[in-house]
């Protein structure tokens, strides 16, 4: 039976690798990236995947081989009466330590660009989470938020393509999370805090805004629509929104 069990454990790396190899072909994979910074996140994801994949295959295959080779029913060699090896311990402490430290350092620049180095430009839009919708607020002609000429909307976010956007994220009630998978951005909205997010979209189209932090029974239906369009189309849309708003006031 040792043979059978070893082979069962060998299935783990085989099916595991197959799963990740076939998933993109079946359409289950990172959605197409439309942001300027997204390729760095995807690269780091693939970097982690290949690195952990190599360790995964190596350790699981060693586990299989030891299970196969040292099955008590078939192995006639005497048991190696060993309590360990000082040298091996040193090797498998230092090598993973260095690798892990390298992985951490390798991430830092992308993280700093995504979350720490806030661009020094005025916010294009303010988004406020509320059970279970996204409230949108654009500065009016004066270019400043929180003034009388602000333009409001719900769940319909329009942004210009190929421009760096600063989006201020807030919440009225509970925690929410502003997640656009194709833009590779995610940030919790915290009541009481104003948290800036920044990105540049490189492709026009419409995308879904996903709430990624449990916010109550309607969490699953908290869906916004993000339209990325040309500067002209965006300006025209904003102007039209402003006119509509004036008409209803």
């Amino acid at each position: 039976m040792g043979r059978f069990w070893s082979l069962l454990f060998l299935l783990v790396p085989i099916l595991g690798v197959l799963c990740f190899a076939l998933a993109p072909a079946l359409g289950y994979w990172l959605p197409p990236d439309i942001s300027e910074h997204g390729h760095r996140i995807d690269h780091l994801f693939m970097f982690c995947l290949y690195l952990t994949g190599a360790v995964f295959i190596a350790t699981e295959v060693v586990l299989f081989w030891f299970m196969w080779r040292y099955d008590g029913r078939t192995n006639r060699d005497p048991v190696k009466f060993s309590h360990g090896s000082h040298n091996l311990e040193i090797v498998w402490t230092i090598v993973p330590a260095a690798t892990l430290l390298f992985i951490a350092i390798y991430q830092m620049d992308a993280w700093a660009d995504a979350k720490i180095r806030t661009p020094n430009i005025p916010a294009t839009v303010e988004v406020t989470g509320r059970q279970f919708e996204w409230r949108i607020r654009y500065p009016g002609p004066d270019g400043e938020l929180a003034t009388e000429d602000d333009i409001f909307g719900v769940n319909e976010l329009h942004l210009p393509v190929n421009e760096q956007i600063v989006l201020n994220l807030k919440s009225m009630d509970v925690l929410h999370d502003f997640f656009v998978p194709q833009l590779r951005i995610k940030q919790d909205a915290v009541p009481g805090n104003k948290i800036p997010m920044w990105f540049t979209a490189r492709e026009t189209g419409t995308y879904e805004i996903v709430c990624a932090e449990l916010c109550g029974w309607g969490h699953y239906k908290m869906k916004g629509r993000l339209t990325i369009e040309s500067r002209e189309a965006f300006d025209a849309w904003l102007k039209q929104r402003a006119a509509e708003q004036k008409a209803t006031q």
Partner: protein
Amino acid sequence: MSTTALGSHSVAHSHASGGALAFLRTYVFSIDHKVIGIQFLFSTLLWFVVGGLLALAVRWQLAWPWSEMPIVGRMLFSAQGGQISPEFYTMLVTMHASVMIFFVIIPILAGAFGNFLIPLMIGADDMAFPTLNMLSYWFMWPAFFCMILAFFVEGGASASGWTSYPPLSSVASAAPGSHSGQTLWLLGLIFVGVSSMMGSVNYMTTMIQMRAPGMTMFRLPMTIWAMFITAVLQAFALPVLTAALFMQLTDRLLGTGFFVPEGLIVNGESAGAGGGQPLLWQHLFWFYSHPAVYIMILPAMGMVSDIISCFARKPLFGYKPMVYSIAGIAGLGFIVWGHHMFMSGMNPALGMTFMVSTMMIALPSAIKTFNWLGTIWGARIQYTTPMLFALSFVSMFIIGGLSGIFMAATPVDIFIHDTYFIVGHIHYVLFGGTAFGVFGAIYFWFPKMFGRTMNEFWGKVHFLLSFIFFNGTFFTMHILGTTGFPRRYADPYHFEIFAPTQTLNQFMTICALGMGASQLIFAANFFYSIFYGPRCGRNPWHSNTLEWQAPSPPGHGNFDFQPVVHRGPYEYSSPEATEDYYPQTAPPPEGGGHAPPAH
């Protein structure tokens, strides 16, 4: 002397009071660590069933949303035509995690196995504080009561996730479950904490003070080392959670506003006092709950080390590095909590620090894995059911450990945070890791608990099916996570981007149902074997550690001789011994030592 006199007096007293009271003293309000351990085992296994059924309901909704649940649907949700409502769904995910973590994993490791094994494996007659030990079990009951009651109060049980992030959890109008359900959840957890703390101080004292002659710290089995370090983790981390729970309780009941910011308007109502900060709860909660992740796996690692060495018939590879890496995990465990908060709005520069500490905590886990592989190298493996579960622990823990690297890498976490990738990760650690380790431990120590062995054939069938269905259910979650599929969604398919994943989810649900059904084999085997399993002697596995030198099951006071320890626990296939095992109590071939009575 006075304690002995007192002890015999109470024994005499209970004898005089006749049958009913004696029965209560022996089996219900027992102060015997073995009975308390078995009480914990039965209670937690029962809750395992509850938690598992809640999980299956979650899976049902994800595969066939808003469709009538078979069999139980009409009974539970007659008002909605047998469908799960979105309110109930958020309650399901919350209560599944709360039950599994606080009523199953933590108490089955520390409460059931810690209690049963610690005195036996160190050669003591009982715990240092037997009455405290009994109380630690009975303090679980108010917690059980609170959690069950929560389902029947207005608004239902807590529905703000097992992490209970405020303001969702602390403002009553934010969610139906945030009415009385959340208060009961908090009270329940406070009782669990009191129980854990009583266990923790008791275990530490017992392990330091009551080891048999010759049992030095570095002759302790890994199970005991892991239990010791877990007890230390509990003792240092729990007060923080308890404080946080009380703060949320007063926020809810007295309007203290520790976690409620200024000017909050929930559901059109002002939430009252402000001046608080929701992130404060997250820091306090994770300061406990990250170490708790290790509380939930270290004892399983210890037990798996013992099982692997026993059935490899070979000494544990690198005993001291194994001990040091457990200590390293515990130490680093206190400075990694922020990795749960990379997207929370916490100072992103702090994210860098937590990323480095989180990466480094993978190191002791890697060392442990390599040493397990080293243990079976050059061995003569016996493929028993406990060994298969222990080996699967190693195989699954490799996956759970490696997938953790993705979340630790902060930029990658931007995409996979709060997606199914993390759900896959935690289940590889807690189900593929801990739960498989616990199954292995049950099959392994069952003969000591009940004096009979479980059926090996059905044990292996249970293993095979669980292993296959487990991987079918959870490996696919990583794939689902790469699509951005979010957690805790009652119906993700109205999002264009997630609609194509429904087939994958249906596959996972079928596997989950299969996994649930496979546990019936275990239950049948377990209960049948308690009554009709073949009787076994003291040491059916030919193991070295002390508990196997005691009778099966051990009587009150555990040992029928004074155990004296001559060596470490892993001297399998020692050239010094005539057989392939060498009990810790066996006297060395030459020189002193006290021979145990023949058995």
